[in-house]
C-alpha cells in the first residue's frame, strides 16, 4: 500500500485516503462553448498513457478533501512528488518530497564507517 504525501496536510498518508482523478495540467478552456470539435476532442478525450512519469490529479478524499497534483511513475507506482493544484509542473530532478529513498546495504555500510 502506497504512502502519498498530501501537500495541503503536509503529511504522508495511506493510499486508502486518496482517490485518483485523472490527468493533471489539462485546463478547461475558458471559451469552451466556442472551441472546435478537434479542440474539444483534445481537451476531453485524448490522453497519453505514458510508461514512466505521469502527472495526475489526486484527491485526499478521506482527509482534507483537497485536489492536488502528483508526478507518479507508472512502472513502479512510486510517487515522485506531489504539489498543490494550480502550481506549475515541478522540476523532477529536484529533491523528492517523500521520505522514500532507495538505499543499498553497501551504501549504508559506507555510512556506518
Amino acid at each position, binding site marked *: 500500500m502506497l*504512502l502519498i504525501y498530501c501537500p495541503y496536510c503536509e503529511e504522508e498518508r495511506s493510499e486508502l485516503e486518496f482517490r485518483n482523478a485523472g490527468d493533471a495540467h489539462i485546463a478547461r478552456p475558458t471559451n469552451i462553448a466556442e472551441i472546435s470539435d478537434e479542440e474539444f476532442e483534445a481537451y*476531453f478525450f485524448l490522453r497519453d498513457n505514458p510508461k514512466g512519469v505521469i502527472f495526475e490529479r489526486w*484527491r485526499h478524499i478521506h482527509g482534507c478533501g*483537497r*485536489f492536488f497534483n502528483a508526478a507518479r511513475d507508472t512502472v513502479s507506482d512510486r510517487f515522485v512528488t506531489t504539489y498543490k493544484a494550480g502550481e506549475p509542473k515541478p522540476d523532477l530532478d529536484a529533491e523528492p518530497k517523500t521520505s522514500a529513498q532507495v538505499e543499498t*546495504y553497501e551504501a549504508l555500510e559506507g555510512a556506518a564507517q
Partner: protein
Amino acid sequence: MSGVNRISGAGRLTPARTARFTFDGRTLTALEGDTVASALLAHGIHLVGRSFKYHRPRGILSAGAEEPNALLDVSRDAARRQPNVRATVQEVFDGMKVSSQNRWPSLAFDVGGFNDLLSPFFAAGFYYKTFMWPKAAWHKLYEPFIRRAAGLGVAPTEADPDHYASRYVHCDVLVIGAGVAGLSAALAAAQAGAKVILCDEQSEVGGALHYDSGTVVDGKPGYEWALATGKALAERDNVTLLTRTTAFGYYNHNFVGLVERVTDHLSAPDKALPRERLWQVRAKKVILANGAIERHMVFANNDRPGIMLASAGRTYLNHFGVAVGTKVGIYTAHDSAYEAAFDLRKAGVSVPAIVDSREKPGEAVLNEARRLGIEVLTGHSVVNTTGKLRISSISIARRGGGPARKIAVDALLVSAGWTPSVHLFSQSRGKVKFDAATERFLPGTYAQDCLSIGACNGTDDLQATIDEALAAGELAARAAGAENGSQLAISGENAFAWTGGMIGAAEGAGPDTTVKAFIDFQHDVCAKDIRLAVREGMHSVEHIKRFTTNGMASDQGKLSNMHGLAIAAEALGKGIPEVGLTTFRQPYTPVTFGAIVNHSRGSLFDPARKTPMHAWEEARGAEFEDVGNWKRAWFYPKSGESMHEAVARECKTVREVAGVFDASTLGKIEVVGPDAAKFLNLMYTNAWDNLKPGRCRYGIMLRDDGFVYDDGVVGRLAEDRFHVTTTTGGAPRVMHHMEDYLQTEFPHLKVWLTSTTEQWAVIAVQGPKAREIIAPLVEGIDLSNEAFPHMSVAEGRICGVPTRLFRMSFTGELGFEVNVPADYGQAVWEAIWARAEPMGACAYGTETMHVLRAEKGYIIVGQDTDGTLTPDDAGLSWAVSKKKPDFVGIRGLKRPDLVKDGRKQLVGLLTKDPKVVLEEGAQIVANPNEPKPMTMLGHVTSSYWSSNCGRSIALAVVAGGRERLGQTLYIPMADRTIAVEVSDMVFFDKEGGRLHG
C-alpha cells in the same frame, strides 16, 4: 509413551507434558511442543500422504514452512477443520484429529496409485493436449474429472465459527526472522532506542539454531543464547516480539503483512481470543533476516517416505529428540549434511554411509567423519532407491559408472546445499543478482527501504552474520531517528565451516535418462519434465513453469525453483542468469481467508445505512430493498397481501387520499456563498440567477461530454444559500464532481459545499389530502396555493421543531417534503402518521414511488438514462438554458454525434394487450420477422403495472423515438413477441392539474 523413536535425553521438549491426538483414527501420544510431523516421526510414521498426480506414497521432507509433501487435514471439531495443513508447522494440541489426504480407500493402499503406472500418459503439459478433443467431451467428461482430481484436501462445508483480529501498527524497525541474525539486529536496533517489531514464523525464536548442535554464541550454546535473547527483547518496552507470526507479504512503502496464529496450537483456546491476528505494519526500516532453505538432491526415486532434508533430520533429533530412522544414510553435495551424521552417530543411531557426490568435501567435516568411524564415499551418487511405503535401500555407484552397491537404510538424509530466502526481498520489487561462485541468487538492487542480513544475504560465516546484523540494526535504528549507539559486540562460533552445494540433476538423472527424479514434490514434476518442456519449445522460464507447473503448488517452489532453473538452463544451453528467476509473489506461505476477510463478514461486510424512520418502518412490516448501502422501505404488505397487491393498493391510496414516504436517502448538498448562484449556473444546465429565494427548480447536471449525470430539485433559501438534492445513489459522486470543478476549474468562486444528506430526515406527504394532513402541525408557513405554490420552499416549524418545508412532487399529486433535523425524524413522522392514518392515507415504499413517477413520465437518472443520454434524448431540453455562456456540458452537447438525427430518445410504450407487463431491459425491434441478427431500436427502461391507469405502462429508449409516436413496434421474447405502441411519457393526468391541488 510419546513414540518408540524418541531418544531419552535428546531434544528440548519436556517428557512429562504430553498431548493425545489421532492420525487416521489411530490415537497417538505427543509431547507438548511437538509438531504433527515430529510426533508422527516419533512413532515411526513416515508415510503421511499421496502425491497429487501419480499418487505416490510420500513422507515428511522438511521440518519447516517449505514442506511440499506432508499436507494433512487437521480438525478441532466439525466446523474447525482445515485441509492442506503442513504437518511440519502445525503444533500438536490435545484432542486434535489429523487425517491424510488424496488417498482412497486408505493411505497404504491407494487406488489412485494406478496413475503412477500410467505416468507415460501424464507427461508434463498433458492437460494442454489430452483434453483437446472431442470438443463436446470437455463439459461432460474432462472438466468434472479434472475438478474431482484437482486439489489435495477437501474444503470444510461448515461456516468458520472463529473470529479473526486485525491491527495496524507503525514501527521504526521491523525485523523479519528471529534466528541469530534477526535477534542480533533487533537487539542492536532496540539498544539504539528504536521501536522494534521482531517476528518469526516458528513457535519460538532461534531459526536455524533449532537444528544446530555445535554453535556457541556469547559463550552459550546457540539455542540457549537465542531463547535468553528473545526473553530479554520481549521484556523491553520498545520491542514487540511476535512468534508464530509469518511475514507473508511485502508491499509498497515498507508496508508488510504479518499473520499471527494465536490459538491453532492450543487445546482449549479462550473463546475471546481470535484464531489469527493480521498485523498490517508500516515500518520506517525493514531488516530481512529470512535465512536459507535447504535443497534436496535430484536423483531417481528420491521421493520415497523416509527421504528427508538433512537439516530436518537434525531438527527432529536435536530439538524434538526423535531419530528419523535406525539406519540412516546420507546423500549430499554439501558439508552441512555431515553434521547430521555426527549428531545421529552420537545419539547412537547407525549411519551406514555418507554418500557425497563431490570428490573433495570440506576437510574439517571429512576428518570428523573419519574420527567417528563413519564411512564416507566421495565421488559417489545414489542412483536409485527401493521400498514401497518407506525407503528400504539405496543403490550407490561411483561417478561416471561402475557397479552399483546396495545399502540397506530406513531413512536417507539429503542436502544439495542452501538457497538464500530472497522471497520477501523479491516481493519488495528488489532485483536479485546471480552469484556465479556460489551458484545462488542474492539481493542485488534494492527498491525499498530495507536491508538483508545473514543467510538470506549470502553471508555464511556466523561471526560475519552477527557483525552484519548488529551494524544493520544500529543503522536502521539511527536512520529511523533513534539516537543512542548500541555498542554491542557478540561473539559467535560454528563447529564447522561449510562448503559445497549443487543445483540441478545429480548423477543418474541427467539429460540422457527418463527416471523419476523429482524436483517439485507437490506437483510431481521431475527433471525429465523440464527437459520435455524445453524440447516442446518452451524457452522462457515463465513458460517452462506454466507448462510443467513447477513451483506452482502451495509451497511455491521453495525447494524446486533452483533445481528447475538449472535443468532448464542446461537443456537450453544457456547460463542460469540468462534464463532468469521467476518473480516471487505474495503470500510467502498460504494465508487463511479468515485472516484476510477478518471482521469484514456478515453484517460488517458492508455497512448498512438506515434512515431515522427505519425502526418504525420495520415495526410496520415493511419489506426493504438495498439502494447503494441504504436500506429503503420497498412496500408495506398488509397481512396476506402479495407485493403486487400491496403496491397496487398503495398507488391507489396515494392518488385517492394521500401517502407518506421516507425520502431521507436523497442526497443533499448545501451550496453557500456570494457566488453560489454563479456556481450552480456552471454545474447545472438551468439558469439560477432568476430563481427567487423561497422557490425551487428541477435541475439537470451534465458531465463535460454532454451526457446526463444527475438530477434533482434545488431550493433557494436566500440569495447566497441553496438546498440542492441529488439522486440517492448519486450523492457522493455529485459532491465529488462539484468539489472537483469548484477547486480546480472555478477556484475564483466564493462558494462552500457541505454534504447534509444525513443531517435531514425527509418525509414526503403526497396526495389530495396532503395539505390537510400537515397543516395543523406546521407553524409560521402559509400553506395556501397562493402563498406557497408548487415548487416553493420555506423555513418554519413543524411539531415544534425546525423544518425546511418543500412544496414539490415526485408523484404528480399535491405534495410536500418535510425536512427536519435527523434526530426528530421519527417523532415528526409519527405525528404526521397519527393524522394521516385516520384519513385513510397509507405509508408507501420505493416500489410505489417508482410506479407513481412513471405514471407521470418522471425519469430516474441511472434507470431511464444510462450515461449516454443527453437532456434532449430524455425529453428535457426545456431545462437547458439557451442563454448561458457556459455550463459544464455546454460544448459536449454540440458534438456531431449528440445532435444528429435518429438518436435514442425516451418515449412511452403501451402494450397492445394492456394486461401484459414488459420486462425491463427487453430489446425493441420494428420488424419481428427480420432474420437474426435483428436491428435493435432500443430497450425498455421502466415497466410497471399501473393500478391507476388500469393497465401496464412502460418507458423505453427508442431510436428516433419521438418521431415514432403512434407506431407499432415489437418486443421479441424467448416464448413470444409482444406488440407495443409508442406513446408520450405521461400516462396519468396529462394536464398536470393535480399538482396544484
